[in-house]
Every structure is written in structure tokens, then in C-alpha cells.
């Protein structure tokens, strides 16, 4: 947890230092500072990115879209300790709601469609969540998995809605608000980049607030021991459902943005592969780490893009084993998931953020790992 629990002052220190450390403990604003710096940094990207490579902006747009859903999932996995293997479906619900509203009803305000998409996803999240979250662990995983698969299967069969037989729903208008309309991604990435990352950063802000608050503590408590949390007055059922709904809303939002920015949606954009990709992003970014979702989304999007789009351009005629670089990404992710679970269960964000301190606290790497493994005993 980056919120607090970090600095452990030596037990021998004197009282006044304690008080200081407590102040720091209660109002540790480092996260806000990082958020500020990161935001400023991200805002500068459009200025220089295209001089390095135009692919950066497009990758960042995708990363931003995914970041939104992954941050939500991180709340669910990392803080509430509940798993979902079907969140791509909520992305889909958001996307189709937005797309249908904007294409079937001419002149429907896109920003409103976006919000409605998020809300509908949340509503369905509530309906699904109430019964399903009664289940635990594997049963929950299976139920959400099935839910996600059913969604895509339905899309394939319900042609009247999804228009699958003609390549999905096309001609989705670009995002527009207060009379100003964004240029389509292909013409200029900047518009969507800003829109998406502003939303993503607001979502991060929201999560930071949440995690540092009473609610955040409740969630972490419930993750650690459901019975203890409940007897301490945390309404665990209620909390689980609420987090599930929030993650669904964020997923819906992400879907809406994806639909608007790509102009065309079809079923395969919301199938199991993406649900799994999101899980991978959460895990590699760092479960239960505010920055994990964002980091995971950015890192994996770039790895994928570089392997799928850039390698083939750098090396036009490749040896047979490198014929399909996109597949290497798949193998890599599988391997990473296993290795991270074994050695870095808290994800890169945690791992990297600790690198600096390893030298100081000798062998703390090992200790951390042991502790981490013990923690996951819960």
C-alpha cells in the first residue's frame, strides 16, 4: 500500500519524532504530488511524442483507455480481494450503449451517451454483482468468466443489435462537447489523447482519495480478513458490491471512449482475451497499488504494440521463429504472470519503487518476498 504503512520509524526514536511520523502517516500527500507531476509530464507528451514516433500517441491513447478499466479492476482485485474474469463485457456494454445511441439517434450528444454507457454498465454490474458476489474465490472467477463469454456469444448471435455480419457498428461520431468536436484519431491524436488521459487521471485522483479514506481502509480490512472486518463494523457484502459496480462503471466509461475514438466496434473487441489482458495488466502493474493499474496498462500496451507493429517494420524479413511477433507477446505475458506471482506478487510498480531502497536495507528484497507470500496466505 502506498498510502501509508510505508515509513516504519525505529522503535527507539523519541516522542516528538513519533508525532511527526504520525502526522506524515495521517496526511501522507506523496500520492498527490506524484499525481501532479505525472499529470504535468503526460500533458507534455503530445508536444514531443510525434518527433520520436507517431506510434507513441496512438499507443498512449489505447493505454489510457485501458488504464481506466484496469484502475477499476485494481480496486476490485487489489483492495477488495474479489476477482473478475469478465470485465471486458462491461467494457462492451459501455461501448455498445454509446455506439448505438450515437448512431441510431442522429445528433445524440456524445458526451451524454458516454455517461449513459458508464451508468448502464454500472447498473448491470449491480444486477450481476448482487448474486454473484455471494460466491467466493474460484466460484466467483468462474461465474464472471461465464458472464463475459455469454456477452460475446450474445453479440455474435444478436445481429440486429451488433451488426456483426457486416463488420460491427461503424460510423460512430467523434466525441464532441460544448460545440467543439474532436478530430478523429487518424487525423490528429492530440484531442483524444487529452480527453482520455484527463479522464484517466481524474479516475486516479478519485481512487487515491477513496483508498486513503475510511472506505479504503474498510476494503483493505475486508481483503485481509472478512470476518474481522465485518465484526469491526465494515458492511462487507455492501462494500464488495459497491466496488464491483464502480469497476463496472469505469469499464463502461472505457468502452464508450474506445467506441468513440475508434469509430467502429465489433464483438471481438470485448471477448475473453481482453478480460484476461486486463487481469494481466493489474497483476503486472501491481495489485493493491494505486499506480499499478496505470503502470500495467502503459507497460503492456507498449510491449504489445512494439512487438506487433514495430518489430515487423524494423525486421521486414524475419526468421521463421519470429514470423509472428504478436504471439511472442502472448507467450511473454503467460510467463510474466507466473513469474510475477512467484517472485514479485506486488507488481512492477512496487518492485521498481523498492529498487532504490534495497541497497539501504540489506536483503530486504528477500524479506519483502517472504512477507508478501505470507500476506497472500489470507
Amino acid at each position, binding site marked *: 500500500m502506498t498510502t501509508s504503512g510505508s515509513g516504519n520509524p525505529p522503535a527507539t526514536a523519541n516522542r516528538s519524532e513519533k508525532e511527526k511520523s504520525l502526522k506524515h502517516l495521517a496526511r501522507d500527500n506523496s500520492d498527490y504530488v506524484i499525481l501532479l507531476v505525472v499529470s504535468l509530464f503526460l500533458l507534455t507528451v503530445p508536444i514531443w511524442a510525434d518527433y520520436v514516433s507517431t506510434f507513441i500517441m496512438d499507443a498512449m491513447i489505447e493505454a489510457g483507455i485501458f488504464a481506466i478499466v484496469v484502475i477499476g479492476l485494481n480496486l476490485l482485485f487489489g483492495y477488495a480481494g474479489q476477482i473478475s474474469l469478465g470485465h471486458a463485457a462491461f467494457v462492451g456494454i459501455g461501448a455498445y450503449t454509446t455506439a448505438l445511441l450515437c448512431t441510431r439517434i442522429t445528433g445524440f450528444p456524445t458526451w451524454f451517451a458516454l455517461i449513459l454507457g458508464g451508468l448502464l454498465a454500472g447498473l448491470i454490474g449491480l444486477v450481476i454483482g448482487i448474486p454473484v458476489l455471494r460466491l467466493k474465490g474460484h466460484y466467483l472467477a*468462474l461465474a464472471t468468466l461465464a458472464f463475459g463469454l455469454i456477452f460475446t456469444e450474445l453479440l455474435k448471435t444478436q445481429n440486429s443489435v451488433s451488426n456483426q455480419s457486416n463488420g460491427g457498428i461503424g460510423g460512430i461520431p467523434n466525441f464532441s462537447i460544448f460545440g467543439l468536436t474532436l478530430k478523429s484519431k487518424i487525423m490528429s491524436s492530440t484531442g483524444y489523447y487529452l480527453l482520455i488521459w484527463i479522464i484517466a487521471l481524474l479516475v486516479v485522483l478519485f481512487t487515491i482519495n477513496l483508498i486513503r479514506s475510511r472506505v479504503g481502509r474498510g476494503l483493505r480490512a475486508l481483503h485481509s480478513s472478512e470476518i474481522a472486518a465485518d465484526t469491526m463494523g465494515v458492511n462487507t457484502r455492501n462494500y464488495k458490491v459497491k466496488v464491483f459496480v464502480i469497476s463496472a462503471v469505469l469499464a463502461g466509461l472505457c468502452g464508450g471512449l474506445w467506441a468513440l475514438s475508434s469509430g467502429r466496434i465489433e464483438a471481438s473487441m470485448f471477448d475473453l482475451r481482453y478480460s484476461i489482458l486486463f487481469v494481466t495488466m493489474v497483476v503486472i502493474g501491481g495489485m493493491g497499488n494505486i499506480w499499478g493499474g496505470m503502470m500495467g496498462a502503459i507497460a503492456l500496451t507498449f510491449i504489445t504494440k512494439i512487438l506487433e507493429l514495430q518489430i515487423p517494420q524494423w525486421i521486414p524479413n524475419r526468421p521463421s521463429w519470429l514470423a509472428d511477433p504478436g504471439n511472442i507477446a502472448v507467450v511473454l505475458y503467460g510467463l510474466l504472470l507466473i513469474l510475477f506471482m512467484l517472485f514479485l506478487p506486488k507488481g512492477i510498480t512496487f518492485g521498481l519503487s523498492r529498487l532504490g531502497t534495497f541497497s539501504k536495507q540489506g536483503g530486504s528484497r528477500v524479506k519483502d518476498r517472504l512477507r508478501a507470500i505470507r500476506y497472500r496466505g489470507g
Partner: protein
Amino acid sequence: MFRKFDRDQRITIAIFAAIAVVVLVLALSIKKSAGFNTILLGLFYGCQYSLIAMGLSIIYSSTRVINFAQGELSVLGGAFFLTFVQRASVPMLLAFILAVLVVASIGALFERAAIHPLKDSSIITMIIMTIGFSIFLRGIIKWVWGANALPVEPFTHGPPLHFLGATVERQSIWVFGFTFLVVIAVYFFFNRTLLGKGMRAAAENPDAANLVGVSPSRSSLIAWTMAAALGAAAGVMFAPKTLVSWDQGVWLGVKGFSAAVLGGLGNVMGAVVGGLTLGVLEFVVLMFIKPEYQNIIALSVLIVVLLLRPQGIIGKTESLTV
């Protein structure tokens, strides 16, 4: 496994059996021989689901882990069989055994490398672990065996057999026979052999594990090896029918989950019942509703059973949801 059901179970089984009978009678009466044919087909694929589900249940009962890579292990079995037969032109039976052995050892390896070290970590960790394994295998299979579906020779050639107006491929005779043998063998293992009984006892009561002389570590290793072997066997037997393709694993796994949950996760013999049921159900749906809805139905079954009766049709009533 089976034996003395409590009242609740008997009722469920009765209802369940009743529905089954009605459906079958319906199918047979409406579609006559075609109906019979369809049901045979359902049972045929049911065998595949059963074998996969058995693997899942064995692993679950002894390690409380769901192996999301079970489908991929199965595909891997088919792929190795294909290679042995076509590239190395090994005789069929030998190739079969080799493929199963190779995959079984892969399963064992994974258990030692990844599952054993984290045996007492959270469920999320385990789920992600096996998901990672499945992704990894999928990628490897695509890498090595390519992206196209590869045809495989059936065990024995020759025209299909006909009886009661149904057409039965020779391959399905092999499948039925073999699945039957495997099920018997597994049942025997868990009910007659000391080791198997020990594993069951250990599964039912982990504390008693060491008393019955089967350490959790050992039973976990055996479970994973057996499961991988079962998956591989299924893969090999169905390769001639379904061809071998890297992307089959996902749905195989899903059908396996549905079957296993239907029969009660961790209930090995229940998995067989679940698998056959699911197979028949799918084809009844195909016959009476619409082929596209096969998968949707299979999944809905999974969800409904999870919510209403997580312990499965013939499982004992115990609250898994707390």
C-alpha cells in the same frame, strides 16, 4: 463420490433424472433415429468434457485450485500425438502413450515449479497462476504447431457403423470404450487403492492428510500429473475428430468447468455425469433451438448451477458461499 446420499441430494438427483428422461423421450419421439443419433453425438462430446472435468475435479479436490490451463493441456496432448504420428511416424498406440506421458510430466513440472511453492497463498494468486500457464501454453502451441487447424488420422479407418438408424464413426467407438476404461480406472484408484483413498481422505480433511500417510504435497503432485494425463488423453482421442488447433483450449476449458461444476467441483465421478449431461444438453439445444445457442446454454448452466447449487447436482449440501 457416490454412496449414501442425504435427502437433499436424492431430491435433486430425482428431479434431474426426471428432466433428463423427459428430454430424451422427447428427442427420441420427435426426431426418431435422428434424435438418437444426436444424443449419441452428445454423449460422444460428453466424453471429452468428462475427461477434462475429471482432471479439473481431481486437482480441485486435492489442492483447492482450479486449473484454467486444463483445456490447453488437452490440446497439447493432441498436438504431441500429431507430431509423433506424422513427423516421427511412431505407431499410433505408442504415440498415444508418449503424448500422454509428455503432457503428464509437463503438468507435474508446473505443479512443482509454480503451484507447490505457493501452496498456501490466496485464491487470486492461484487463479492468476494457472491463467498465466494457460496463456503461456496457448502461445507455445501456436508458436510450434502454427496457426492453422491440423488434421489427424483416425485410429482406425473404414466406413462408419450403423445401428438403430444411427451412424457411428469408428473413432467414437474408440472414444466411448476408452473413456469407459479411464473412468473405471480412476474410480478404482480413488476407491480401492491405498494411495487413492488416502488422497480422498486428505481432500475431505486436510488435517487428516498426514494421518493417512499422504502428504498434501505428494497428493497435489499426483493430482496434477493425473489431470494433465487425462486432459492429454482426451486431446489425443478427439484430435482426429476436432483437428488440432491452438485456440481450442479456451472453450475446452470452459466446457470442462461447466461439466465439473455441474457434477460438483471436486467430485470426480460427478464430473463424468456432468460432462455427459452437458454434451447431451448441447446437442438437444442444437436440435430444438439454434446451433448458435449451444455455448450460451452451456455457460448459463454453469452460472445457474453456481448460484443455485454450487455443490453440483450430486454434491452434498455444504455452504460454499458462506
